[in-house]
């Protein structure tokens, strides 16, 4: 199973991630009363990027983006996609750290380019990351404390009984907090300050063209995938759906349907983010930080206290 997951889950993640990118463009267009691009438009973009002759600001410029993409793929291996999970070593903590490496690689690469806009973008990225990591860490700690495990797989499996985490009411507040910070994790509006195209020429990736841009797009797709999948895994029960798959237990079909259920759940969550994305303007970075450190943090903090007290 692990061996299969090793090959399958990166593929699923990549395809689903690209699909989500395309979907989000399409949905946004529809919300704006446009026809919108074909859903496979991101794939075309990636191919186009690959075909172009990019520039490089040196070896380190290349290194950063390769590091970013490959660590994003490693991250996928730690994520239970349906019932597939290739690596469990280190649990959610290792996962958190690996989540850091993607943006970190891009930051290194962008800074090596020495573009002022990249530097500003990276600075914003890190500040935004700090801003949303505070509630995110609280949320994850709440979940880990509640289930008393650091393993993502176990968290998913425990939820199989009730179908989702909200069966235990203590986790409702962290769930809300996660939804509040989800746009920030995905880099969507109103938290789109990092790659603000209009003011800082898309920030960290200002110098990325050709294959660098292609790699970045893939990384971004994976990032979106991970951000949503994490929510699905820790709150919506991952592959489980209120005992729907119980009759199939032990068969290959259970795995396949598990993945499908997982992806459906993800799509659902994505929609929530997209609606917010489509109708909101952008926060300034200070506003974003203040917002993230106010409501989501407060909610998740209260959630953590409740979980600690009820334990």
């Amino acid at each position, binding site marked *: 199973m692990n061996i299969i997951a090793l090959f399958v889950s990166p593929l699923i993640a990549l395809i689903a991630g690209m699909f989500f990118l395309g979907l989000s*463009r399409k949905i946004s*267009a529809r919300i*704006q*009363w*446009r*026809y*919108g*691009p*074909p859903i496979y*438009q991101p794939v*075309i*973009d990636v*191919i*186009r*990027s*690959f*075909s*172009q*002759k*990019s*520039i490089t600001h040196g070896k380190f410029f290349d290194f950063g983006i390769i590091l970013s993409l490959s660590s994003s793929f490693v991250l996928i291996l730690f994520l239970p996609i349906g019932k597939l999970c290739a690596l469990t070593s280190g649990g959610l903590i290792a996962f958190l750290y690996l989540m850091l490496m993607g943006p970190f690689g891009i930051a290194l690469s962008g800074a090596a380019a020495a573009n002022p*806009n990249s530097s500003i973008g990276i600075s914003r990225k890190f500040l935004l990351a700090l801003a949303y990591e505070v509630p995110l860490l609280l949320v994850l700690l709440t979940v880990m404390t509640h289930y008393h495990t650091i393993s993502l797989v176990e968290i998913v499996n425990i939820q199989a009984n009730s179908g989702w985490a909200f069966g235990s009411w203590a986790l409702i507040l962290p769930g809300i907090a996660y939804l509040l910070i989800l746009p920030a994790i995905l880099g969507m509006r109103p938290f789109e300050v990092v790659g603000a*195209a*209009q003011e*800082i*020429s*898309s920030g960290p*990736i*200002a*110098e*990325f*063209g*050709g294959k660098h*841009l292609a790699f970045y797009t893939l990384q971004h797709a994976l990032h979106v995938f991970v951000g949503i999948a994490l929510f699905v895994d820790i709150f919506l029960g991952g592959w489980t759906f209120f005992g729907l798959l119980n009759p199939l237990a032990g068969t290959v079909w259970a795995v396949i349907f598990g993945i499908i259920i997982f992806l459906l759940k993800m799509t659902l969550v994505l929609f929530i983010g997209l609606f917010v994305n489509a109708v909101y303007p952008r926060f300034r970075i200070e506003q974003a930080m203040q917002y993230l450190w106010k409501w989501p943090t407060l909610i998740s903090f209260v959630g953590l206290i409740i979980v600690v007290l009820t334990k």
Partner: protein
Amino acid sequence: MDRNQIGKWLKNPGKMANKYSFHVVYFCTGCGIIEVPPSITTRWDAERFGIIPVATPRQANLFLITGYVSTKTLAAIIRTYEQMPEPKYTVAFGSCPINGGMYYDSYNTITSLDKYIPVDGYIAGCMPRPEAIFIGVTHLWKLIDMDKADGYKRYREDYVHYRANQEQILGELDWPPLFSKENL
């Protein structure tokens, strides 16, 4: 997408992708930029052709020059053009880049953009309507299919010539030549 498209995709995916994914650097050079917002928003929705604006030339493959080009802007245009990765296409929008338009005798407006950077297609008019942009894009598709949108190649081949023209009008350029003898 129809059947024969698939064949083309398999044969030369890069070219096809370039066709259907125009990332445009909208350089707000002149009054023509006023026609761009309608074309990318709800009314005409350029995104259905894969055309989206990007913020930096590094990510773009289409350069839309919207309106007259003053000598001062020319420097920025050349710089931006040179920073775009190949393959890249230039479309001049409005009559001014073609022949100077109403600024034909202005002392600081260049009358023919083609002398300084290669232009793959012109959209004439003052101002052209947004529909004209789409017509221009479909023409560009055909040119790409026929490998005739080869402005960037011309630029490489005739770089000495272009650079001389640029220096003639701008004086000493404050950036090094894009192509030195080694990488020509």
